[in-house]
């Protein structure tokens, strides 16, 4: 393999490892639940291959277990994944003019986790689209394998081993810290935290993620603009 390609792969993998670490226990748990809901292992493989979306997959398994209809599950998936509209729009700022084939391949792997990791690096200016693509697809490969492992043998894995359930929370905390590049970012983050908790408590479903983040970003944007005009 060409040296430059090797470097891209290695740097992509270095960026992706916290995601992979975090995906493993979640994927296992999903596989176990799916198996309990009556899904054969190949159906779990098919689901993770076609639908790379952890939270939507958990909801799908729960809905299958309660006998929900196919259209209801698909519609729920759509609503749960709407937050990725925001993430893809943010990523478009860093992928201006990139050819559509690449974007079509890249978009498949845009998740909360890969978005946060790639965006942080794009912002620092040390990242390119190929490294970002490695992150997306490596995370996806681990996810598919973990869910299949869970479906086949998940019930033999002890719960909560080594605090691994906290891996993604820890990763999000650190990526949040990386985003705090000035007062307006801190204010927006605090607003989003308060709004999301309130929204989460008052309104059922998952709308709190999109609702709170769009509201907080809008308030933050208006504050910033007013501040600039005031000068």
């Amino acid at each position, binding site marked *: 393999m060409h040296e430059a390609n090797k470097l891209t792969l290695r740097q992509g993998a270095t960026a992706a490892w916290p995601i992979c670490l975090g995906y493993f226990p979640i994927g296992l748990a999903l596989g176990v639940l799916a198996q309990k809901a009556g899904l054969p292992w190949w*159906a779990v493989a*098919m*689901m993770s291959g*076609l639908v*790379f979306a952890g939270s*939507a997959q958990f909801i*799908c398994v729960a809905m*299958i277990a309660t006998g929900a209809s*196919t259209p209801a*599950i*698909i519609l729920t*998936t759509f609503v749960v994944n*709407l937050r*990725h509209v*925001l*993430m*893809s*729009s*943010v990523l478009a*700022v860093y*992928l*201006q*003019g990139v050819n559509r084939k690449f*974007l079509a391949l*890249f*978009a498949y792997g*845009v998740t*909360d986790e890969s978005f946060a*990791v790639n965006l942080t690096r794009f912002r620092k200016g040390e990242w390119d689209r190929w490294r970002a693509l490695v992150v997306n697809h490596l995370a996806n490969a681990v996810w598919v394998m973990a869910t299949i492992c869970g479906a086949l043998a998940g019930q033999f894995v002890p719960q*909560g081993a*080594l*605090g691994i*359930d*906290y891996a993604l*929370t*820890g*990763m999000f*905390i*650190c*990526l*949040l*810290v990386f*985003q*705090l590049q000035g007062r*307006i970012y801190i204010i*927006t983050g*605090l*607003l*989003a*935290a308060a709004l*999301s*908790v309130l929204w989460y*408590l008052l309104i059922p479903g998952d709308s*709190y993620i999109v609702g*709170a*983040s*769009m509201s*907080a*970003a809008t308030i933050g*944007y208006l504050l910033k603009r007013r501040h600039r005009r005031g000068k």
Partner: protein
Amino acid sequence: MTFSDYLILFGGMGLATYLPRSLPLIYLAHKKMPQWLIDWLSLIPVAILSALLAPSLFADAAARSFAFGKLELLVAIPTLVFSLKTRSLGGTVLVGMLLYWLGGMVY
């Protein structure tokens, strides 16, 4: 459920997942974005990360009620401090896991 039942279900879910991820990216990457949109989008990551994290730290998922002093929150504080001091992603993940693991034994 048969093979084709699963294929229809997961195929539909796949589209419902893929389209929200691909359409904005493919559309916006080939369009000159107005400055206000870029400014607004620059605040979205911090807001989304906060909105993903905060309810898991301050609310009980099963009862969907406010909860103050969950282990997740207690561990988040030193993890946050560590991450502010070191700016190390890998280190933060490992410290968070270690504290959560130890905390689970005594909490």
